[in-house]
């Protein structure tokens, strides 16, 4: 059919457009020399080795993991219980959370950065804590989505009531029945949040700057000095994102399986 071929052409373009930059950067990360020829002149592991011997990079990586992981950790202890409480006990207020989700999702970092700097530079709070706080709120949409989806698919209210009817304490019901069932969705939300924060540049760059060098800031610095090292950083970043995406896909599949019980 003629029209089918037409749509397939766009599909091909779509996939090529998305894949080509990834392939080219990966190739660049492994090429010994590649600035006068169409294809690299030779392949090497030199750049990756150099990168892993660079203490600055290792530290930057550690900072990124610490900051993103810290924010996700705080969100798990602050946001997740709040969503549980609202969904289970105050469903009439859920629309407020939804409004907050839409607002957080749609306000870009560059606007929030102005407000954060205006409020906190004069107060004397370490700015890195301000970014951490903003990160915790920034991942609200992903955490909410993950928690909400898994709560919806198991009908948490009924499950808790049933457990208590059979003699479980409130705490027992929550810890042994509800938490394990929503765990895959929650974990997927946490990983997604982590991967989003790991790529965050705007807030950390504008609010804190090079005083707290994350992987993104390290990459920005290398962009002008060494293309090969930069491509090695991007390659590592892509591998990490690929792994996270893969695990998230597996988890989502599993939590969808729970629905069928």
């Amino acid at each position, binding site marked *: 059919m003629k029209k*089918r071929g037409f*749509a397939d*052409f*766009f*599909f091909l*373009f*779509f*996939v090529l*457009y*998305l*894949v080509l*930059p*990834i392939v080219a*950067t990966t190739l*660049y990360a492994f090429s010994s020399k590649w*600035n006068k020829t*169409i294809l690299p002149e030779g392949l090497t592991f030199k750049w990756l080795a150099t990168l892993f011997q660079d203490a600055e990079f290792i530290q930057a990586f550690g900072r990124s993991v610490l900051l993103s992981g810290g924010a996700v950790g705080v969100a798990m202890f*602050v*946001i997740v*219980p*709040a969503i*549980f*409480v*609202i969904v289970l006990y105050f469903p009439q207020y859920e629309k407020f959370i939804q409004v*907050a989700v839409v607002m957080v999702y*749609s306000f*870009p*970092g*560059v*606007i*929030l*950065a*102005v*407000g954060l700097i205006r*409020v*906190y530079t004069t107060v004397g709070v370490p700015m890195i804590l301000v970014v951490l*706080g*903003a990160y*915790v*709120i920034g991942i609200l949409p992903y955490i909410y989505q993950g928690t909400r989806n898994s709560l919806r698919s198991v009908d948490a209210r009924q499950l808790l009531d049933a457990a208590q009817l059979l003699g479980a304490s409130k705490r027992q019901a929550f810890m042994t029945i509800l938490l394990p069932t929503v765990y895959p969705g929650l974990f997927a939300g946490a990983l997604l949040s982590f*991967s989003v924060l790991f*790529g965050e*540049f*705007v807030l950390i*760059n*504008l609010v804190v700057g090079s005083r707290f060098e994350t992987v*993104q800031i390290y*990459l*920005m610095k290398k*962009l002008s000095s060494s293309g090969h090292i*930069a*491509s090695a*950083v*991007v390659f590592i970043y*892509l591998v990490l994102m690929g792994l*996270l*995406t*893969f695990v*998230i*896909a597996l988890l989502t599949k599993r939590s969808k399986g729970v629905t069928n019980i």
Partner: protein
Amino acid sequence: MISKRQSFAWLVPFLLLVLLFFLVPLLYMVISSFSTSKGFTLEHYQSVLTNDYILQGFKNSITLSAISAVIALIVTLFAVYAIMRFSESAREKILILTNLTSNFSGIPLAFAFIVLLGNSGLFTLLFEKWDIGALSSFSLYSWSGLLLIYIYFQMPLALMLLYPIYDGIQQQWKEAAALLGASTWQFWLKIGIPVMLPGIVGTFSVLFANAMGAYASAYALTSSNYNLVAIRIGALIKGDIFAQPELASAIAVLLAVTMVMAMLLSEWSIKKTRGKL
């Protein structure tokens, strides 16, 4: 009831965080955009709206966002049409690829495009070798270069938003239309597209807002040289020229207003689609 009050305690830290790191900064920003040491004023807005450079930044941002949104939307609309006919496992793989690439934005994405189209990029060399004059004068560090990058990060988002909208078109409708003698073209023209239209408009405004707020890719490519609203705000608050924080606040408020308007349009049109389906 004790248990309710106890559970309410779980909400306090959450509300506190929202207040401290979201609502208060935004409110303070709005207030400071309207104030001087003497009190209420509109002078910051006046200086934004009479400053040709800042206005040009708005114009650049709006055209870049709108055009990248339209192109990504058109490509993805047809791509999703093709994807819908694939097997379930193939569709799943495409969605995973899309999820992966949706994280590929900002600085890493800008770098990937430098590898492809930068001064000694793969395609730049190809164009020179083949001596394609029009293409070899292409510069990644310009409006059209930014457009390519913006299209890149818009497409995965467009796919994720359009996918469920396509899913809403039911096979039975197509069969019913075919039974009544409609061709495929007629079905899409008279039924499919009108049903999806509000959803498509909604997707457009989400994409538009997404691009309006984007900062990192443009910053990585042109540092503060290319004039976009987000870049202007960044330059005003980052170190060097922070003498006018109120001005940055006013620009940020105007940017927020543009985006809120786009989002409201999307809310409204998505509600309209839901009503129809």
